[in-house]
């Protein structure tokens, strides 16, 4: 019975056909977009294409775009019902990551500006 049971979960009817939503094409599209984003990041940081103080913002936008490309084309987070749980977990992860990084930078910047000049 336990082997049978195992089988039931391993081979749910209808799973076989959509076992993989990926294709060579989707990976290639993802690679092309990621290469463009990477190249743009290096160009933006090394040239005067963007107004100086705007460079960090441009780099962060490009990095976020590339992370999005990776998530959709390489990790296959889509709008299908199979990835709903993955996306919810990701949203929670992003929240924690944002709190840790932004919170640390904010608090330490405050502490630094309150330091006595040495």
């Amino acid at each position, binding site marked *: *019975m336990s082997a*049978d*049971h195992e*089988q*039931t*979960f*391993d*081979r*749910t*009817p*209808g*799973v076989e056909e959509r*076992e*993989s939503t*990926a*294709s*060579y094409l989707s*990976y*290639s599209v*993802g*690679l092309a977009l*990621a*290469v463009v984003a*990477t190249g743009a*990041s*290096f160009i933006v*940081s*090394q040239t005067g294409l963007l107004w100086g103080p705007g*460079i*960090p913002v441009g*780099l*962060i936008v*490009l*990095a976020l775009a*590339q*992370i999005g490309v*990776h*998530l959709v084309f*390489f*990790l296959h987070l889509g709008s299908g*019902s*199979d990835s*709903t*749980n*993955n996306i919810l*977990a*990701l949203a*929670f*992860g992003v929240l*924690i*990551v944002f709190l*840790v*990084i932004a*919170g*640390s*930078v904010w608090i*330490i910047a405050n502490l630094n500006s309150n330091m006595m000049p040495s």
Partner: protein
Amino acid sequence: MTITTTDEGSSPLPFGLLREHGDGPASKRIVVAYGFWIFILSDMVMFSALFAAYAVLSGNSAGGPTAPELFNLHNVFIETMCLLLSSYTCGLGVLSAERRQLMPFFVFTAFTFLLGSAFLIIEAREFAGMIEKGAGPARSAFLSSFFTLVGTHGAHVTAGLIALVYLVVQVIVKGLQAAVLRRLLCWSLFWHALDIVWVGVFTLVYLMGASH
């Protein structure tokens, strides 16, 4: 009997993992990938702490070498491309494995391994060069946080390469059975996630550091 018990109420899976459109519980492949995804996200939370430490400490070079003097963006670009291409071939390798195409699987996996190793070699030479110049992790808070963040990523890549060898051996010995395919799927998630971390590293550490 096994089918009737999974229909309603007594499913051993949490409610959220049931399909909405009523064709039974999610397949084991999806449940396993979900569990591994949780692990990856917890790894991301750990990396976020290291990123935060670097962001806070990157200006504290204690009179020692600063980021623009140390970073060679040419090498970083090659490293980035190596990791990106290895992510691509890893995806194609797992796809070939799922389609039961053994030969393409081995070719793509070999490329993944070589590109990952190339990344590690470039990174190790960069680290060795910095330590030679007296810019080791003990020099300043900036360098401590730099070596911790980039070194942790490198350690993950190393672990990924070891796991890849282990999985290829499993494919050779056991064949492309369901359990091995699930492990390959999880491994590819890990590898793609490392590439995502690297996007953060080359943007925040190298590009922003060098453009100051």
